[in-house]
């Protein structure tokens, strides 16, 4: 370990003395101070706090990720370019120790900078929402909506696989499936039809959800019901009146909430503890009560209606978010060190930025991986260009999706500003995917190839 620490120490010294560390710190502090002056939010105290958390932490993550990739790519490749490596590898240091030392050094720099950035953001948040600056009402709203850590509970969903299969078979027998439409695409379309039908609430009709909440909830632990929907009158920007009720299966009397809300955005209201049965099984019903401008309402997807229950403090949630950001940086550091061990600095940086960009285009990559590059969804003749090129493109995007999917999914900044809990399970998943599997594979590949590399060519 002494050798690894020696190499890590050297990486830290290099960062500090080459002023990389100082410039990054200046950049971070400037961004943290300047951003709140530019960003205004939606005018509410809660909105302002959410914007502050989201954008400040996002900019910290972006700056540190870019810097990590740059420094990591250079950590070994510049050693080779400047021939410092000649003295390093002629000492009793294995390539694994060299790789680990460089990686560990970058992690230490990241830990320091992330602590400074995160600490400043948290301090700024407390400062901007301190007593005397905001009204008691605003502070209460903040405590209710932002400075919380709520665990989301999702309703049970019905599987449409069997009915979609049966329908597809029936349609095929009747010859109602277009000739050039693959069965897989027809199946997906049919399944999607059933899902939309299940999630649609026509005017005057009712939809019900079943939630299983913890049984040991405290007597004062109210929960939040958060929902988002789309409407058949969405383009007209009209609100839709609805009636929400919650309680036992056949007794929804304990709670009623009537509300006219606009489609598109997220809405929420509090469901009192008294409405939640002791066994934790909560039934929620929505009645489409719009009479003036009747419209069909669609609650699409599993997360369209969620119950949020308090689960720990905001400060701990903030710390967990920092930890996940650190794990993401550890992955990018490993990627950079590996790329720098095998390639020259410019090529290593190019490759690493390519992987980094995958995390930003996760949705697009997932969609191409699923449908292919040239899918034309509304083509009048259902033309399916299943060319060789499309197959190649789809396979390529599937491979990219393997990397981009966890990177896009394991992003703590999607949850923290909304007051959603970043659970230990989420952290464990981040460690498993980003640190153990991806960073581990990157390390194995990097050390393996670096071992075989002639560093004095």
């Amino acid at each position, binding site marked *: 370990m*002494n*050798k690894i*620490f*020696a*190499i890590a*120490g*050297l990486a830290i*010294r*290099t960062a500090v*003395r*080459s002023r990389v560390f100082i410039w990054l710190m200046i950049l971070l502090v400037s961004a943290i101070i300047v951003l709140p002056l530019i960003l205004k939010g939606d005018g509410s105290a809660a909105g302002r706090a959410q914007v502050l958390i989201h954008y400040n932490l996002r900019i910290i993550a972006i700056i540190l990720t870019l810097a990590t990739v740059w420094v990591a790519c250079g950590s070994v490749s510049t050693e080779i370019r*400047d*021939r*410092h*490596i*000649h*003295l*390093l*590898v*002629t*000492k*009793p*240091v*294995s390539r694994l120790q060299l790789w680990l030392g460089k990686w560990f050094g970058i992690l230490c720099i990241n830990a320091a900078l992330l602590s400074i950035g995160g600490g400043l953001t948290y301090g700024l948040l407390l400062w901007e929402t301190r007593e005397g600056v905001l009204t008691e009402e605003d502070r209460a709203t903040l405590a209710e909506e932002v400075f919380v850590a709520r665990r989301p509970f999702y309703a049970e969903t019905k599987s449409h696989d069997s009915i979609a299969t049966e329908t597809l078979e029936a349609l095929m027998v009747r010859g109602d499936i277009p000739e050039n439409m693959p069965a897989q695409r027809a199946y997906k379309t049919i399944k999607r039809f059933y899902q939309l039908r299940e999630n649609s609430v026509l005017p005057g009709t009712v939809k019900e959800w079943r939630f299983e909440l913890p049984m040991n909830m405290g007597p004062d632990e109210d929960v939040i019901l958060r929902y988002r929907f789309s409407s058949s009158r969405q383009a007209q920007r009209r609100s839709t009146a609805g009636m929400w009720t919650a309680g036992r299966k056949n007794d929804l009397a304990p709670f009623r909430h009537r509300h006219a809300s606009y489609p598109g955005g997220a809405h929420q209201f509090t469901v009192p503890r008294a409405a939640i049965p002791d066994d934790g099984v909560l039934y929620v019903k929505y009645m489409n009560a719009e009479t003036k401008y009747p419209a069909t309402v669609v609650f699409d997807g599993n997360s369209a209606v969620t119950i949020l229950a308090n689960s720990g403090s905001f400060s701990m949630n903030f710390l967990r978010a920092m930890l996940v950001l650190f794990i993401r940086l550890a992955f990018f550091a490993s990627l950079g060190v590996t790329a720098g061990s095998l390639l020259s600095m410019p090529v290593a940086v190019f490759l690493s930025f390519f992987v980094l960009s995958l995390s930003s285009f996760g949705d697009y990559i997932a969609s191409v991986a699923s449908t292919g590059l040239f899918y034309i969804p509304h083509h009048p003749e259902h033309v399916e260009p299943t060319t060789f090129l499309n197959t190649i493109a789809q396979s390529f995007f599937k491979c990219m999706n393997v990397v981009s999917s966890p990177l896009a999914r394991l992003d703590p900044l999607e949850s923290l500003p909304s007051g959603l809990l970043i659970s230990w399970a989420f952290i464990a998943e981040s460690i498993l995917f980003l640190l153990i599997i991806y960073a581990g594979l990157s390390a194995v590949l990097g050390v393996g190839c670096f071992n075989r590399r*002639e*560093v*004095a*060519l």
Partner: protein
Amino acid sequence: MIEGGTGKDPVIIAEGLTKVFRDFWRRPKVRALDSVSFQIQKGEVVGLLGPNGAGKTTAIKLLLGLLHPTRGLLRVLGRSPRHVKSKERIGYLSEESFLYDHLTAEETLDFYGRLFDLGRNIRKERINQLLEMIGLKHARRRAIGEFSKGMARRIGIAQALINDPELMVLDEPTSGLDPIGCREVKDLILTLAKRGKTILLSSHLLADVEDVCDRIIILYNGRVCASGTVQNLLEDQTACRLTMPSLSPDTLKEVLEIMRQKIGNTPDVDRPQKDLEQFFLEVVQKAQEVAAVKTGVDKSAGVAGYLAREPERTGKTVLDELIEK
């Protein structure tokens, strides 16, 4: 036959060593070494000579595991040169001082000491002795980037000695050094050789090699062209030289006359000259006695204690003794 292959305790064994450099498409580009075979025995000081591009540096890089041989067998201290264990007993001085500019002299030596897993106290003691030996004790907290080429070279020598190595590989060890530095390096090599260390050095300066080496290997175009002990290779068997105190003109005339009668012709007579290096060293030594050096390199304090100590007396290295303490 393998050159130098008669000893029982080989430190380096190279048999049919070949190195071919290839281009991006793996097509052969240059054959830097071609079936080179030699052995270096424990305690030998061997010089690797040759013109530019002869393959000296390639051979050294192969010995250190920086390059991998295309063909042939290579063993250093009984192991593959890429084995980490064998590197614990090697000291390497590269052709140029590839040191970290932002580290101070002390930090540099401490860093390399840590790579050998040396304890804090041993490192501290050795760093002090080495800095004194190379005359840079006063500059221990200056960054290497501020050093002259010669000063950086001295730090390079010190880092190669931090582990008290059994085998030293020195690539152009006197490059960039002033004549005093060159003399000190040569003295150091001789001291280390006395302690039973094995030294392989490559140099363009033939006089340096002649001064310190027991044996030389001359490479040309990737092949061994000549090899053997310095004495055997350089001795002129067709002539001999007499050296005597200065004679009066009459006595000299008589001596020459006798010799002319005995050998048939008159031998050449001249006065022996000091070489320039020796003269320079004497001048600087006198100057140092008058005024202390304020910048650059101090007067060397001789070879570092742990390097100069005779191992035969105790059979232990300084490292062993310090651990026992």
